[in-house]
């Protein structure tokens, strides 16, 4: 398990993307539907395998974005973490990019465990 995506909310996606690409010199990697069913832009960071997700902030959306952990086998990690006493919000669920399950730490920070699957 390792950190793969760091989500950032913004009310102006274009402005945020310009900030990342022009000010910080980062590169747009692509777009994917990873969180909450909404399309988000993926920014490649200088840390190999770690990406920033730029998400449109809906006015009513006050949720803190979760830290996204990458796994090769979601069911195995889900089982190991549950056995270690971690409470998940839900059982592993399928999405267009693979299988994921969400849990929180004692301070209420949220983590999303994702196994990305290439179906083609």
């Amino acid at each position, binding site marked *: 398990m390792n950190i793969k995506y760091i989500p950032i909310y913004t009310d102006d996606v274009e402005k945020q993307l310009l900030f990342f690409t022009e000010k910080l010199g980062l590169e747009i990697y692509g777009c994917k539907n990873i969180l909450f069913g909404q399309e988000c832009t993926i920014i490649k960071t200088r840390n190999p395998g770690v990406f920033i997700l730029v998400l449109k902030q809906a006015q009513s959306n006050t949720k803190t974005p979760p830290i996204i952990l990458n796994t090769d086998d979601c069911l195995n990690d889900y*089982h190991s973490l549950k056995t270690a006493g971690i409470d998940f919000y839900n059982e592993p669920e*399928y999405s267009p990019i693979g299988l994921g399950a969400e849990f929180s730490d004692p301070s209420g920070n949220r983590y999303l465990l994702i196994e990305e699957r290439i179906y083609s």
Partner: protein
Amino acid sequence: MEYLKILKNNNVIYSGTRSHKLTLQSNTDFSIKFVFSGNENYSIGRRNLSIYPDSFLILNKGTNYSSAVDCALPVHSFSISFDEKFMDDFKNCWQLKDDTLLKPNYNNGQENEFSETIYPFKGDLFFNIKHLKYQLDHGVQDEILINEYLHHCLISYFKLYNEEIFQKAERLNFLNRSTKIEILRRLNLAKEYLYTNYNQNISLGDLAEYSCLSVNHLLRTFKQAFYLTPHQFLVQLRLQRAQVLLKNTDYPVNEVVSLIGFECPSSFIRLFREHFQTTPLKYRQSA
């Protein structure tokens, strides 16, 4: 590595290399049969079905079948039998949770019967089986984890069943639902004939006769259900199996061409390039 794992809840998992013939036997529980290399032939009544690593077969409880291995390559079989109670609990749980996953009334009115045919081994079922097999091959003993995988194998099988049976039946241009189901059952006979005899010369007449449809009826309804003509389906299947041979064997391309039932290497290379945007040799080098 060969193992037969019987869980406390009577789910059974078998993995091993087979080279023998199994005589007629009755399937004790709903089972899913895979092969990870080579191919295995099953006989169910008068039907002969071959499964390859890109496909799998399901057998309902009580089905009489025999199986045989007639293949130059070692055949690695993997099968799961689900205990009836485990299946019932799963169905109850998922029907309550999401009724789109299982519509039992579609199964010819027999709630515990699934269409016994060959299905493509793809999507989430492929990943879930791969992970389960990896864990078992590495000696995992935790039955809660194994059952979690089995539960998810059923979720992904039901999703696939929904795509392969319900959605395809819905595409058929008939008003009556039972007609749709019956035509799809016959189209699945055609599909399994193609899966099994993909490397032979198949005439439309033979295919129509096997599926109990007229040639015209077969052509029209096959295209409605699969969005491909039987010929396009066959070419796609042959190319897919050529990929496996190119990746896993050292057979020269010309031999691969004849093994998958193509007669002309140049048309094979042209079709391969059209489908996969690469040549067979480049594919082999990068695989």
